């Protein structure tokens, strides 16, 4: 038996190239749309993951322009600002604090790195609190140091690879000629931890004569606490700077929203073009089949039957295009991610484009909706064809 769907579908096969091009047009715009939706979701969740992987939501640093810190890290030399260890207790007295971990960063100049020397940074962490806060870190070899005074180190994977170190090996701190035993090598995390050399905080303080000093304090805020209010309290502390990752995240999201608006405009334009393409294709095929439609009506087709016939044609085009678009989006999400990464001022480490079933369904629904809307006019034109128009054309 034959159904109206067969008739619609087979009509599209009449002009294969035209139908194919239309489907490709819809497919491309569906691809852009799915990627955009995936990006909206992926970027934020990648950013969240990066922030979660820091283990804390608020970072306290010594007052001073962080530009200097960046310069220090990249170019070498000293100039890090310090705060007093006593702040730890002050911060801890706030009820909003769930966990806290003090850190001391120290950078040394290594003349034997590269042609003109390079910088090696060590992060002093507290073995009692840091591993607990960063419980997601996994070890490839060994484990954390337990003695806060030990001459021991844990290396991020890339730091270990650069230094060719394994557990049991010795690591030399160039400036001080100090030998440190490697006790753990972390698995890759895709974050800055990969390149970090962790030492017990007391060891760093003693080695570099910074007893009682810290460069940062990581604070994990209680889930139920009001972070904004807590941050205001922290601003009251002398000589510290509050880096709220929630605010940082917001700032980054604001920066990225410009990019999002651009991509969204592209998506809208692509969708508009595809819509016009669909209307054009279907309308042309209606005009070409004027007589045929008249004959269908003389056979007993109601205006609604013809409307449905043409509408289904539009829908088939859009569903096929939507399917292709989603396959493209899924297949190329890595490539699209790399492309977007190049365009953005800052991109988090995870995958930038997350495509889940929700996005796939949203894209398909959008494309189908576009199909339904753009099919209305051609279908209405076709439904209005009078049987006589077809037959009259024979009289002449």
């Amino acid at each position: 038996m034959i159904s109206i769907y067969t008739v619609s579908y087979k009509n599209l096969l009449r002009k294969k190239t035209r139908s194919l091009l239309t489907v490709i047009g819809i497919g491309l715009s569906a691809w852009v749309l799915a990627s955009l939706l995936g990006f909206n979701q992926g970027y934020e969740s990648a950013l969240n993951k990066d922030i979660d992987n820091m283990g804390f939501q608020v970072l306290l640093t010594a007052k001073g322009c962080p530009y200097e810190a960046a310069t220090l890290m990249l170019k070498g030399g000293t100039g890090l600002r310090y705060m007093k260890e006593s702040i730890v207790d002050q911060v801890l007295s706030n009820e909003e604090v769930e966990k806290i971990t003090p850190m001391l960063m120290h950078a040394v100049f290594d003349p034997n790195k590269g042609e003109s020397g390079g910088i090696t940074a060590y992060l002093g962490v507290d073995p009692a609190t840091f591993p607990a806060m960063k419980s997601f870190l996994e070890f490839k070899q060994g484990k954390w140091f337990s003695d806060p005074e030990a001459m021991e180190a844990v290396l991020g994977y890339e730091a270990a690879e650069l230094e060719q170190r394994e557990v049991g090996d010795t690591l030399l701190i160039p400036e001080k000629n100090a030998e440190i035993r490697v006790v753990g090598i972390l698995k890759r995390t895709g974050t800055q931890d990969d390149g970090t050399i962790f030492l017990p905080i007391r060891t760093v303080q003693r080695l570099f004569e910074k007893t009682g000093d810290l460069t940062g304090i990581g604070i994990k805020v209680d889930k139920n606490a009001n972070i904004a209010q807590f941050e205001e309290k922290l601003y009251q502390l002398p000589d510290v700077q509050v880096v709220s990752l929630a605010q940082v995240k917001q700032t980054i999201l604001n920066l990225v929203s410009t990019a999002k608006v651009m991509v969204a405009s592209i998506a809208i334009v692509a969708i508009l073009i595809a819509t016009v393409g669909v209307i054009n294709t279907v309308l042309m095929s209606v005009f070409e089949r004027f007589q045929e439609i008249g004959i269908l009506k003389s056979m007993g087709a109601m205006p609604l039957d013809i409307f449905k016939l043409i509408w289904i044609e539009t829908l088939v085009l859009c569903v096929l295009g939507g399917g292709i678009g989603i396959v493209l989006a899924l297949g190329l999400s890595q490539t699209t991610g790399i492309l977007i990464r190049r365009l953005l001022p800052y991109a988090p480490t995870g995958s930038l484009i997350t495509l889940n079933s929700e996005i796939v369904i949203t894209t398909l629904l959008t494309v189908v909706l576009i199909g339904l809307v753009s099919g209305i006019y051609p279908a209405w034109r076709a439904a209005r064809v009078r049987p006589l128009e077809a037959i009259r054309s024979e009289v002449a």
Partner: protein
Amino acid sequence: MEINPELIVAQGLTKTYTRGSETVHAIRDISLDIPSGSYTAFIGPSGSGKTTLINILGCLDNPSSGSLLIEGRKILGGDRPLGEREMTRIRRERYGYIFQKFYLIPTLTVEENILLPCTFYRKAESEDRLNELLTFLGLEKRREHLPGQLSGGEMQRVAIARALINRPQILLADEPTGNLDSARSEEIGRLLKELNRQQAITLILVTHNLELARTADRIIELRDGRIR
């Protein structure tokens, strides 16, 4: 309970339309009866109004004045012209149409083309009817073929099968042999005659082909919108 044995009764049918500033009378005041099971051929030169008349008889068009009765019920004319939907309903229940150009859908197979009207209006036994028609019209072996693979005569036979799939009372044929050579025309003529005789289908024919017209029971000649 038939009071009127005539299937179709036309009374004072007139159709006018305007062409530029002048009013053209396509047909004027035509009255005629078409009995059930009859075979009527309309002939006449181009512009004589035969197509306009057959369109009104076929419920494809409203007359400007006059009325059309089918089985004694007034269908067209009178106080209000019939709407598109009502005309369609009458058409699909009672009429089948064949045309000079066969209007088969090129992407559908013979079978699908024949069954096409059933997608809009379907009588229960269309599958049996399909087999019956394929046999009657000698198209059994062409079932799965596309129109492009058929000869002209075969295409018109497919169009006839399509017109008959819903068992119409009335078959309207507008120049059915206009695109065929004489051998094929004769063959179609024989088929139409046979349909009229064997299946008691009321046949209304418009043609230039006098040979074909002669197979009808009655020939009505039109000239300048009137019956001569």
